[in-house]
């Protein structure tokens, strides 16, 4: 019953976007997002939207997935729009009723902000849709590695992320098993009010935590017995390699960013 939870939202496809180096993808995303905040005209947004559409097409991700990804921020989008419409002042009054009025500036800023949020979410979800969590972690580790000199434990952070991701399915499976075992003893996870339901989760959560700690101990022991001693000098099975395509993508992204800002 817990099995149909998907982790992250990665969609495996064979596309040129998927095959880009994760580091390049992260850098491009950061560049594009930064550029997005410098755009100050709707035509700039239009161009940004167009390039997002092109990337979606190239990545072979169904458009509907990206749109569905916007659902969680719908509330934020609406709130932004409403706040701006009613509270930002300036420009001519479009509509008035008592002390409530909508002014042109408010409507404009509201729409502007909303467009920005939507494009932001679309672009970042493109990154997570086309890059597997493991690749992402590798990319982040690599990009953070210059910070090792100032004491940021980049490899350890990456290892933590990798382990966490690796054990999500395992723990879900474990949870499913414990849940069934307790249900066989008459536990009820599906009825009652919120407080009762929360309390009913104790027979699930306690064994789950215990097993997670036990697993952590076992894993630490297994890693140490295979000589893991932190990220220092560690090599990897799949070295990240920047190819010509990656440079082209980066160059295109740079060009686009400049175009957005001057458009």
């Amino acid at each position: 019953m817990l099995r149909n939870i998907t982790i992250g939202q990665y969609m495996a496809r064979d596309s040129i976007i998927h095959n880009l180096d994760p580091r390049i993808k992260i850098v491009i995303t950061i560049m594009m997002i930064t550029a997005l905040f410098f755009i100050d005209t709707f035509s700039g947004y239009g161009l940004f939207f167009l390039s997002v559409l092109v990337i979606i097409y190239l990545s072979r991700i169904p458009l509907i997935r990206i749109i569905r990804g916007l659902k969680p921020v719908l509330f934020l989008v609406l709130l932004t729009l409403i706040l701006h419409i009613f509270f930002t002042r300036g420009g001519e009054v479009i509509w008035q009723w008592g002390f409530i009025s909508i002014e042109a500036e408010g409507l404009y800023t509201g729409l502007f902000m909303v467009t920005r949020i939507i494009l932001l979410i679309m672009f970042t979800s493109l990154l997570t849709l086309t890059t597997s969590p493991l690749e992402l972690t590798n990319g982040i580790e690599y990009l953070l590695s210059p910070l090792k000199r100032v004491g940021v434990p980049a490899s350890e952070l990456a290892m933590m992320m990798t382990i966490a991701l690796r054990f999500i399915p395992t723990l879900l499976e474990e949870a499913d098993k414990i849940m069934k075992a307790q249900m066989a003893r008459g536990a009820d996870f599906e009825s009652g009010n919120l407080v009762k339901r929360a309390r009913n989760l104790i027979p699930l959560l306690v064994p789950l935590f215990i097993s997670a700690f036990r697993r952590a101990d076992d894993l630490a022991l297994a890693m140490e017995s295979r000589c893991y001693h932190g990220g220092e000098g560690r090599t990897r099975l799949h070295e990240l390699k920047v190819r010509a395509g990656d440079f082209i993508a980066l160059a295109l992204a740079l060009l686009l960013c400049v175009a957005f800002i001057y458009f």
Partner: protein
Amino acid sequence: MLIELKNVSHIYADDFQGTEALKNINLKIRDHEFIGLVGHTGSGKSTLVQLLNGLIKPSSGSVIIDGVNITEEKTGLLGIRRKIGLVFQYPEHQLFEETVFGDVAFGPRNLGLSEEEVEVRVRESLELVGLDYEEFKDRSPFNLSGGQQRKVAIAGVLAMKPEVLILDEPSAGLDPQGRQQLISLLEYLYNKKGMTIILVSHRMEEIAHLANRVIVMSEGEIIFDDNPAKVFSEVERIRELGLDLPEITEILWRLNRKGLKVRTDIFSLAEAVEEISRELRGSEIC
């Protein structure tokens, strides 16, 4: 109590391929049977066992318990779970309460029994598994040894007083002494308490020793369903399915192939010794 499976199939739909875990299973389990359920990993044993107390619903077909079709009834599941106790693999992993008492009492409390009745049942089931009530009731289950933890977990299921007890690999990871105690417990529950027992195990000795009916599964189908002597005489087929034979059967069977005409349907050590020495005396080899 009669358990009946009619044309039961189960497909795990969340896999991309939709693995067919059970294919058209027909099975009747009667009162006071001791069933040994064997099969290699992924043969569908666990799925079958979970179907029996309504933890999962079959994709098609029906599971009928005591005349009630549990695939249709929605509300009756607690009743079913009271009647059919299920001890999962490594049951000690589900312990969660602060005291042994609390953990064993979890099942009876869920049944809505009075506190006095709960206490009676906890005492009874702890003594059944061989743990002293006074000594253990207030201890934390997490400070017990692995073997004791398993006993507590099994007591937690017994406290619901099931008529049918299903155990999934209950002896996995136990030391020889713990295993022997478990076997004695199962014998006691079957002979003295009149329970129906379904034992899932990879240890054929246990099965041959305890069960009076053996069901062999492979690839989601029932391959054999007969008494141990008949099933374990299918030596070649059993091996093909990647399963072991009871050690005694193995020895008798090998002797038989070497030309010593011993019977191979013997499952106790004493009888086997007798059979072999009787044959040896009468043969030319000595």
